[in-house]
């Protein structure tokens, strides 16, 4: 929501006013017209917009394409109706349904999160089918195919009304709740984490995001909201059956409103539903009675056209018109504002990381063989070696992305105990930050938001995180691009963003994987200055580097890895004269040269 624009606040405010007007219209129009049918249409809009907004938390923010969301809607509906038949108000049934839906959501989603893209979608469809068949089968509970009805007890406590206004108000209230929750998530840490996880799962993990945890939270919230809407809709329908409650068609429709409105945006699902529900209703009226199938045919064709010509939905269209022309363009190699350094390098302090006897096999390949070393506080340790020597594999084991077959990595915690972190999250929380050799920006986020993902590690509140991110950005020379999309940066800019995101985590140990590859000479020098200034703040650094100039001027100590083994270590100038090292780099013939 924080798009670049010359006057972001005005654009933002205009947007909010527009949304407020639209929302007010949802209640005002039917009240003004006073027609039951119009009430019904607007209630339907509210229900679909609410469901779609809830779906969007999983399908949009977290990027997990669920086509089985009717599971939660159905659970809410059944819980509500079953309890009403036991004499319990749907206001209570609503929460009971939400609770069951949350449990179902976690059970269903947990195993599915290792699946990506289309596979996740297929798995959710399969779950939905299983739920539907089970609902048909267990007749004692669900009434089977014949469905369940509620007694027509009128009044607020039963959510059944003779007049339509109360139903509209409840539907509208639920929509507001869904929107508020969706907005709150998107503008707080959870939302940033979800989008980061969606864009680059490994980078998110490295930034200390519990990717499974945040997704489960998203699914749980989304399921609870869907179930609550389901309960209300069941009361509104007064009759439910497995065919309509656990319907694939319905699940697709919910997702489609979000898609057409703008997937992953807060207001997109609302816009999608507001536009499509009335069109669908009127199209059905106009075409439905013309010929069997005509309406469905037109519907399918329109869906294809929208997807083809509006792939980013209505919100994409809105942004195209509101985004200021010529946003932050310019030279991206702005100088790194490295603080002037004190002349004397500090003495290396106590040990902060111990690596002992790491072994790793990939199939028959012995990629890491007995790697061990220590890292001291405030030390810069250079790691060099030819391509394919296994440097990045070692890094992956130092940051939890790979588990060593043997050996251990111990890190000194801030409180002074030695710990052995296991997952990327463990490493991040004990203060180990890493970058990736192949840059992993969160493409859909701005530079500021990218850095904020790292900053959240120390600053859970958005304001503080933004502050910290800006500060880091300025330090890294990314100040002018705060509002630019990460995907618009050059490779040098992206490398710097990669470092900035890690720096914003305020790590005590920094693992840098070829941050200087592919950047120009001037930048290399600046980067060296930057690293030294980082080191001066007491951070220990392990840097894989190919740029020898940088390695020599940076490193307090150098490790040379070849074929998975450490073949030399020590003072940089001694190491480069080591016969083994020359042989590894240049071949046997050069050792005597």
């Amino acid at each position: 929501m924080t798009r670049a624009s010359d006057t972001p606040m005005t654009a933002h405010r205009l947007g909010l006013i527009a949304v407020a007007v639209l929302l007010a219209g949802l209640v005002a129009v039917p009240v003004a017209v006073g027609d039951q049918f119009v009430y019904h249409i607007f209630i339907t809009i509210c229900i679909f917009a609410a469901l779609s907004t809830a779906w969007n938390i999983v399908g949009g923010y977290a990027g997990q394409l669920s086509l089985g969301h009717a599971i939660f809607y159905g659970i809410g509906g059944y819980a509500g109706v079953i309890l009403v038949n036991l004499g319990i108000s749907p206001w209570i049934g609503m929460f009971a349904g939400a609770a069951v839906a949350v449990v179902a959501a976690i059970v269903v989603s947990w195993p599915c999160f290792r699946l990506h893209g289309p596979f996740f979608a297929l798995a959710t469809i399969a779950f939905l089918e299983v739920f539907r068949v089970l609902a048909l089968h267990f007749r004692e509970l669900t009434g089977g195919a014949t469905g369940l009805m509620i007694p027509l007890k009128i009044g607020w406590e039963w959510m059944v009304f003779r007049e339509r206004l109360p139903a509209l108000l409840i539907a509208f209230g639920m929509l507001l709740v869904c929107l508020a929750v969706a907005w709150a998530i998107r503008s707080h840490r959870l939302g940033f984490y979800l989008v980061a996880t969606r864009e680059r799962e490994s980078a998110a993990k490295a930034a200390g995001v519990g990717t499974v945890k945040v997704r489960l939270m998203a699914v749980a919230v989304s399921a609870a909201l869907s179930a609550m809407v389901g309960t209300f809709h069941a009361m509104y329908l007064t009759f439910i059956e497995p065919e309509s409650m656990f319907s694939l068609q319905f699940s697709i429709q919910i997702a489609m409103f979000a898609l057409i409105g703008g997937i992953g945006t807060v207001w997109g699902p609302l816009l999608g539903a507001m536009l499509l529900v009335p069109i669908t209703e009127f199209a059905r009226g106009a075409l439905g009675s013309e010929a069997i199938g005509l309406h469905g045919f037109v519907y399918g064709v329109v869906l294809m056209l929208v997807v083809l010509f509006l792939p980013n939905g209505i919100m994409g269209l809105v942004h195209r018109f509101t985004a200021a022309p010529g946003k932050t363009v310019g030279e991206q190699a702005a100088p790194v504002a490295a603080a002037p350094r004190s002349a004397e390098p500090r003495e290396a302090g106590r040990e902060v990381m111990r690596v002992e006897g790491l072994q790793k096999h990939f199939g028959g390949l012995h990629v890491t063989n007995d790697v061990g070393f220590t890292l001291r506080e405030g030390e810069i340790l250079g790691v060099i070696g030819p391509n394919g020597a296994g440097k990045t594999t070692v890094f992956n084991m130092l940051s939890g992305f790979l588990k060593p077959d043997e050996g251990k990595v111990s890190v000194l915690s801030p409180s002074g105990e030695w710990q052995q972190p296991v997952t990327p999250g463990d490493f991040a929380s004990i203060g180990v930050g890493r970058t990736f050799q192949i840059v992993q920006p969160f493409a859909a986020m701005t530079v500021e938001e990218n850095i904020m993902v790292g900053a959240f590690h120390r600053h859970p509140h958005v304001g503080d995180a933004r502050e910290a991110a800006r500060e880091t950005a300025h330090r890294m020379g990314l100040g002018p691009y705060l509002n630019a999309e990460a995907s618009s940066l050059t490779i040098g800019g992206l490398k710097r963003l990669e470092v900035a995101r890690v720096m914003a985590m305020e790590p005590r140990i920094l693992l840098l994987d070829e941050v200087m590859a592919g950047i120009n000479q001037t930048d290399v020098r600046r980067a060296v200055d930057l690293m030294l200034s980082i080191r001066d703040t007491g951070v220990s650094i392990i840097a894989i580097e190919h740029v020898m100039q940088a390695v020599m001027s940076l490193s307090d100590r150098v490790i040379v890895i070849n074929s998975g083994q450490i073949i030399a270590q020590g003072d940089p100038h001694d190491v480069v004269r080591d016969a083994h090292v020359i042989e590894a780099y240049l071949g046997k013939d050069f050792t005597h040269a």
Partner: protein
Amino acid sequence: MKLKSLLTATAAAALLAGAAHADVKFGALYPFSGGLALLGEESFRGVEIAVDEINAAGGIKGEQIELVRGDAVDNNQAIGEARRLISREGVKAILGTYSSSRSIAASQVAELSGIPYFELGAVADEVTGRDLQYLFRTNPTAETMGIMTIDMIVDEIAPGLGVAPEDLVIGVIHEDSAYGTSVAGHQERYGAEKGLNIATVQGYPTSTVDMSSLVLDLKDRGVNIVLQTSYQNDSVLFLNQSAEAGFEPDAIIGGGGGYSLTATAEAVGDKMDGVLDVDFTQYAVNTEFTPGLEDFLAAYQAKYGEDPRSGHSLNNYVGAMAVLEGIGAGEGFEPDQIVAAAKAIDIPSGATAAGYGVHFGEHNQNDRAMMMGMQWQDGKLVTVYPRDAAVAEFQIGD
């Protein structure tokens, strides 16, 4: 000429605005699109013919009837369309609905709005099981169907085969939507009451592409009477796969849907011969028992240029005629007047084109509604049960 068309357009616009006073409006709520559209449309034609007939005879209470269509494609939509008919179109009553779930959803809207709702075709018990004040149903129900099937076994099939009814091994199979499930439930319950041996009751999804396992299961259990409540695709599949598996029960009794359609018979060929069917009144029936049937057929052919595709139109026609004429005999078009008029309807059996009489009893269900037992003989579906309505003899056994 120009002025006239302008006036017509204005009048049409006025009509659309819901400000019509010229005629009395009734809503016709059926699934006109989506999967149920075929028989929804077929049902609607019956109502249309009834309205044409009444209008040609001068309307009711001197006013012409205007039918307003509503498309109940799903449950939420059924509610929306019921609202539209009531609030925008100002209909005096709604006729419908063919599908039970749409009927249940839409009728509660009518109930809460205090508008009478006449169900002419949906069979689920729940439709009238809710004790609504404004809901009436003219057609026979799933229960009627289940009872009729069992009666037919006890009265005709067992004697025809020369065995005691309790020695028959009966297998009940049904598509697993509300329709099949509720009919099968009644067959099971009522069969047990009559002391029949029901070996298995099994549901399956309508869209299935394979029933061979089910057929083998029936064969394995030594089932000799199969009761299937089904749509078209699954009827064809079952009859074909039974023949292919060498499963030859002594009798197959279909329940409505697929078994009454000529297309099904064409699809399976002579395997259909001798197959029984319990359904709404169809067309090969003793017309002494169903006065007006020939006129209905003639009217249908004149209007649509083809024969009716199923008995749904006939039953909706009969229901609509009874209800609309009943309203015409009443005090007026206010909801309570319509309800009073409906309650006063008293048409004896054998006096309508479907054979059954109309009288609303408990739960406002037509307690004279009945189904017919039919058999496919030489490529035709002929009525064989009850004997009053039969045009042919049962062909059972050797």
